[in-house]
């Protein structure tokens, strides 16, 4: 799923923000995305499964949820095309490529936090389909 999201970001006009192929790991106590501003990092997908419909035999119907977190950071003083980029990144959740994979629930939650003068934006995509 990480590869799909990265491909979709690649196809999106992200202005001054560029997509990194690296994972958003922490080096010397600092997350990569706070070191390299205006770079978009995509984390590995996290997957969970839970019963959607319990049955009296072994054929339980299962919801498979996949979460992918995307990070980007920039100086808080100037936000070049920030709103448009975030809006376009949110729109990825409803792209045809995602819909064609059978995800019937597609959500994206955006949160921000400050680290000194850096604004860190996290987008958490959540895709759910019947397994």
């Amino acid at each position: 799923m990480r590869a799909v999201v990265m491909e979709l970001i690649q196809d999106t006009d992200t202005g001054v923000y560029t997509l990194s192929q690296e994972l958003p790991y922490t080096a010397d106590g600092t997350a990569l995305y706070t070191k390299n501003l205006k770079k978009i990092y995509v984390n590995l997908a996290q997957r969970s499964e839970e019963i959607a419909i319990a049955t009296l035999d072994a054929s339980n119907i299962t919801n498979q949820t996949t979460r992918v977190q995307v990070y980007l950071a920039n100086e808080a003083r100037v936000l070049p095309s920030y709103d448009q980029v975030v809006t376009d990144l949110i729109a990825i959740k409803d792209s045809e490529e995602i819909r064609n994979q059978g995800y019937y629930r597609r959500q994206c939650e955006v949160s921000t936090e400050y680290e000194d003068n850096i604004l860190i934006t996290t987008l958490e995509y959540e895709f759910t389909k019947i397994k």
Partner: protein
Amino acid sequence: MAFINPSPGNSNVQIVLQINVIGAASPSAVVTGDPPTAIAMGTTLNVPALQDITINAANDVFTWSQLDSSAKKQVATTSTNSISGNLVVDPTTFFGTTLTAGSTTAVAVQGLLGLSRNKTKIAFALRVYDGSSDGTTTTTGDIWLKGIGYITGLAPTVSADAPVFVSPFTITVDGEYLAAATTAT
């Protein structure tokens, strides 16, 4: 005191609902007697993905008043029997292997919808209890509730929040239930 724990997922213990047509297509169920004293189920269709099941055995009651009694008098009369429940729709067992199958074809060919559409009389067997203490056998002390009737009450539904077809169903029982330890007789 014991209780019935069907242990979903343990094929030796879980609730099993089998159905078959009667006398129409081979290998059909063979019903002996009226009311039935034995039902040999033959090669059945196992109804998969049951969500819940209810055994209805409600007696009607005749009520009257007497001048010498301060309370109403009642006597139980005939019972209306049915098996009802909900299931997740499996395309093969629900629609059958032939969508236009007639009532004389085998149970798997008609499927639940075909049995309902054709008003096909069926025999059913519901395993409500597995007698084994460790869930490793299907033959010792089982209780099968059997009977004959018709598939009714199908109403498949799906929604955006729960994008899987589920359907209620009812087996309207014609006559009495029959309890047996096996599906063979």
